[in-house]
């Protein structure tokens, strides 16, 4: 039994192979240029002064001493942002949105979380900027803060925003509230469904605030030239998203801003929001030279966007045979300081693994005095799955049903209508469950004391959205591939492979480059597991454009009609004259003397992304003395549609699983009662290390996505959805206790044992 299996039905020439990534050598030799590696002549270094309080009114800020400090070249506060000069009347309906966006980058009247930017200093070096920061005098009026999502929902809770009203599915409440939005979906008749059930179980679950944990801190370098052109070099998942955010807050036309995406050291959803770019730009404008701002690790924890803490109630009714009759959930997610938690995604994903006849899901987006949350790999879905998949395991235990058979009985498949109303196309959940059931891991006997095995599944819808690609055929037969999609985990390779496959040429002959926002059409972020699908599809479309032009050129050379010519596997040939034949390279050579080079292009906004499903198996052992959990065996099964580069698909599955293991067992923000984070270092925010883990076995299931010519569907996100419930279910097997609160730390596991009058935990 190999540890990495690929269950393929269709083989291609280049797609499905494991070539070396085009940017690989630069990345193993230290030559690749990440955001912090910019070093522009005369650049200043900037530091951001941040609020020490989670909730306070800013009464005054005095920067005069800092401005006078030797080596300081510019100091800014929110007064230097355009928002300060715009009146409520001028902005009309857009006032609140712009205030939130501008204040999030730099607070104007109130600070809403510890770490909220107050001022920024550009100086000759970072040490000077830091010394000068101590000279800024801020007079605060501390306010009562609210940290817990359910506390924040109560009447009388301290208000994060005095003017925020609940958007209850389009209806705006009269009273101010921390509940920014309530959303709901339902299908069938849940009262009838629960009445038909033989067993109804209802439980509550909570999850803690966690961070994406990318190793590269946020950074930005900006140069605002005297002609009004603003250049930004930054580490981001979406150069166009940065351009839009900066244009919005600085009230600039996008044509005045060029964003160059540098290599990015991890994102996982956390590098979509532009935290530093606008303030770095304003510092550059004031100083007249380039400015670079780098976050420290503590700033990353305290002032970028972690994933929300959540509370949920889940209720499921089933027949004795395991058939689900009704489901219901309420999920409250903490958005942090400004609205926008993924509560909607959570309720849409919660039961998406199942064929639900009767169901109701409600979500609440709640503001609290914590950093504004951001996307984190399948945002919303992991929290929801922790509840739903844990309760299903509990039901299986009660009814003595095999957890995989239970899921097969209820599984969503082609034609299943999900609760938000969309009907599933060809999806691979059943195939993933079968692969897990038939896997050596599941069939093996679990042995030893205090050991347990858990199963859970997970869903992410995946995304399409806009992508642009331009490719040029050079006279030597190589192809330049220009794209706007940032490469976080090997998409240069996967898109070059799809290009080579379509053109029928060698992978090595495709040279991908990621270009700035002036050099390519609008391209949505690298996120939503869309890039290999959508930008891949754009590359295929652009390659088709190249093929058509190559045929036209051959027709010209042979003085015949295009209809007489075919392009198969990189060879252009005359359909009825065997003598007339060009390899791609031969025809490329002819381009120079027959009208010049050929460029293909594509600007697309595809649908048909194909939903992603994963099933995970875990074996673990719990130490009854210490409560510590050791994962001993882990298998991740996932439908990739078609794995373009199986090595990087396995990497996504393994990486997602391990982030989930950290989320399950260790990771959490500790807050003091006022909302100050107590553990903003990698020492105290404990992410998994090599020592904490076994190898992560993978099974790539390939159920072709009908929305892509090679069957590709997104793979980045589903893998983080199942681990928390799978591990919780396994801990139950090891200890006999149900864990309903993340993370499942040694302390909580021991407490669960003591509460049940069993001090040994088993």
């Amino acid at each position, binding site marked *: 039994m190999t540890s990495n299996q690929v269950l393929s039905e269709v083989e291609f020439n280049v797609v499905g192979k494991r070539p070396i990534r085009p940017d690989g050598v630069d990345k*193993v*030799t230290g030559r690749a240029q990440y955001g912090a590696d910019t070093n522009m002549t005369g650049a200043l270094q900037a530091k951001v002064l941040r609020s020490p309080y989670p909730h306070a009114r800013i009464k005054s800020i005095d920067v005069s001493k800092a401005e006078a400090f030797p080596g300081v070249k510019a100091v800014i506060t929110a007064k230097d942002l355009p928002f300060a000069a715009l009146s409520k009347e001028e902005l009309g309906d857009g006032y609140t949105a712009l205030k939130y966006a501008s204040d999030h980058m730099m607070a104007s009247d109130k600070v809403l979380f510890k770490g909220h930017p107050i001022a920024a200093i550009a100086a000759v070096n970072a040490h*000077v900027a830091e010394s000068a920061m101590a000279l800024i005098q801020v007079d605060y009026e501390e306010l009562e803060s609210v940290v817990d999502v359910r506390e924040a929902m109560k009447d009388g809770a301290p208000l994060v925003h005095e003017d925020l009203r609940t958007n209850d599915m389009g209806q705006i409440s009269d009273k101010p509230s921390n509940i920014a939005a309530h959303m709901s979906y339902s299908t069938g008749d849940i009262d009838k469904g629960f009445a038909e059930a033989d067993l109804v179980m209802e439980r509550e679950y909570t999850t803690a605030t966690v961070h994406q944990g*990318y190793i590269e801190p946020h950074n930005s370098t900006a140069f605002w030239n005297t002609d009004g052109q603003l250049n930004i070099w930054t580490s981001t998942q979406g150069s166009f998203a940065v351009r839009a955010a900066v244009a919005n807050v600085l009230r600039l036309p996008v044509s005045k801003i060029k964003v160059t995406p540098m290599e990015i050291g991890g994102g996982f959803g956390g590098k979509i929001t532009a935290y530093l770019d606008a303030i770095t730009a304003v510092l550059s404008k004031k100083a007249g030279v380039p400015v670079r701002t780098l976050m420290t690790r503590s700033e990353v924890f305290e002032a970028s966007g972690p994933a929300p803490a959540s509370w949920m109630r889940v209720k499921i009714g089933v027949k004795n045979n395991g058939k689900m009759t009704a489901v219901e959930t309420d999920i409250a997610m903490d958005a942090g300081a400004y609205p926008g938690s993924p509560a909607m995604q959570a309720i849409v994903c919660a039961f998406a693994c199942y064929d639900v006849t009767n169901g109701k899901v409600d979500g609440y987006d709640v503001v609290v005095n914590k950093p504004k949350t951001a996307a984190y790999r399948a945002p919303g879905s992991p929290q929801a799955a922790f509840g739903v998949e844990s309760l299903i395991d509990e039901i299986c235990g009660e009814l003595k049903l095999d957890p995989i058979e239970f899921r097969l009985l209820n599984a969503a498949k082609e034609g299943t209508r999900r609760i938000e109303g969309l009907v599933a196309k060809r999806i691979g959940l059943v195939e993933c469950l079968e692969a897990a059931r038939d896997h050596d891991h599941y069939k093996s006997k679990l042995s030893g004391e205090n050991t347990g095995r858990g199963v859970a599944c997970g869903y992410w819808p995946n995304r399409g959205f806009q992508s642009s690609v331009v490719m040029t055929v050079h006279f030597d037969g190589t192809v330049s591939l220009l794209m706007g999609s940032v490469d976080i985990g090997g998409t240069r390779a996967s898109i070059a492979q799809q290009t080579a496959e379509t053109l029928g040429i060698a992978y090595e002959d495709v040279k991908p480059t990621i270009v700035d926002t002036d050099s390519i059409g609008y391209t949505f972020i690298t996120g939503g597991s869309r890039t290999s699908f959508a930008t891949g599809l754009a590359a295929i479309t652009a390659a088709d454009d190249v093929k058509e032009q190559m045929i036209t050129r051959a027709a010209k050379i042979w003085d015949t009609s295009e209809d007489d010519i075919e392009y198969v596997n990189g060879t252009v040939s005359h359909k009825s004259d065997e003598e007339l034949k060009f390899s791609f390279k031969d025809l490329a050579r002819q381009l120079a003397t027959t009208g010049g080079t050929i460029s293909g292009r594509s600007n697309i906004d595809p649908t048909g992304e194909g939903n992603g499903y994963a099933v995970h198996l875990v074996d673990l052992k719990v130490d009854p003395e210490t409560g510590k959990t050791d994962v001993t065996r882990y298998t991740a099964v996932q439908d990739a549609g078609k794995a373009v580069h199986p090595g990087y698909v396995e990497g996504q599955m393994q990486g997602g699983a391990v982030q989930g293991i950290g989320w399950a067992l260790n990771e959490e923000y500790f807050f003091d009662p006022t909302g100050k984070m107590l553990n903003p270092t990698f020492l105290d925010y404990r*992410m*998994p290390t090599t*020592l904490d883990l076994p190898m992560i076995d993978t099974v790539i299931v390939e159920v072709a996505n009908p929305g892509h010519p090679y069957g590709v569907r997104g793979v980045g996100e589903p893998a983080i959805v199942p681990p928390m419930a799978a591990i919780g279910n396994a801990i139950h097997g090891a200890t006999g206790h149900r864990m309903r609160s993340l993370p499942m730390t040694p302390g909580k596991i021991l407490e669960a044992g003591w509460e049940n009058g069993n001090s040994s935990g088993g």
Partner: protein
Amino acid sequence: MADVTQVKTTINGEEVNLLCEPRQSLLEVLRDVLGMTGTKEGCNDGNCGACTVILDGRIVDSCLVLGVEAEGKNITTIEGMASPEGLHPLQQSFLENASLQCGICTPGFLLASKSLLDQEPDADEGRIRHWLAGNLCRCTGYDKIVRAVLQVSKAK
């Protein structure tokens, strides 16, 4: 401006004379003074290993070493790992095994792995997992990194 000190050290086999402030870390000196940006900053407090370099045969987090402490020492950074003949076997193995996704932790992992195999050419999985526990990677779940090191280890 703070006073600067002259430091004489050896980096990747070349003798280097440099000026740095006493408060500057070796990481800052490499990146900001010498422009050797292959050594990465992930936390600046010795917890992530992205800034790992080899100093007189031992791996250190260069953010925890002062630049002035490099005086008279022998330092290997990622820029010194490949030779004009080609990549180091570990670099090649990382590429073949898809052991990097974003790549920001890769220089640190490569130097830590090199220092292990320099000392223990036949290190097994358990030994590799112990040795690399000071280096954080958030993308890969470590599986493919451990396999890449194991492949080179067994080849020796």
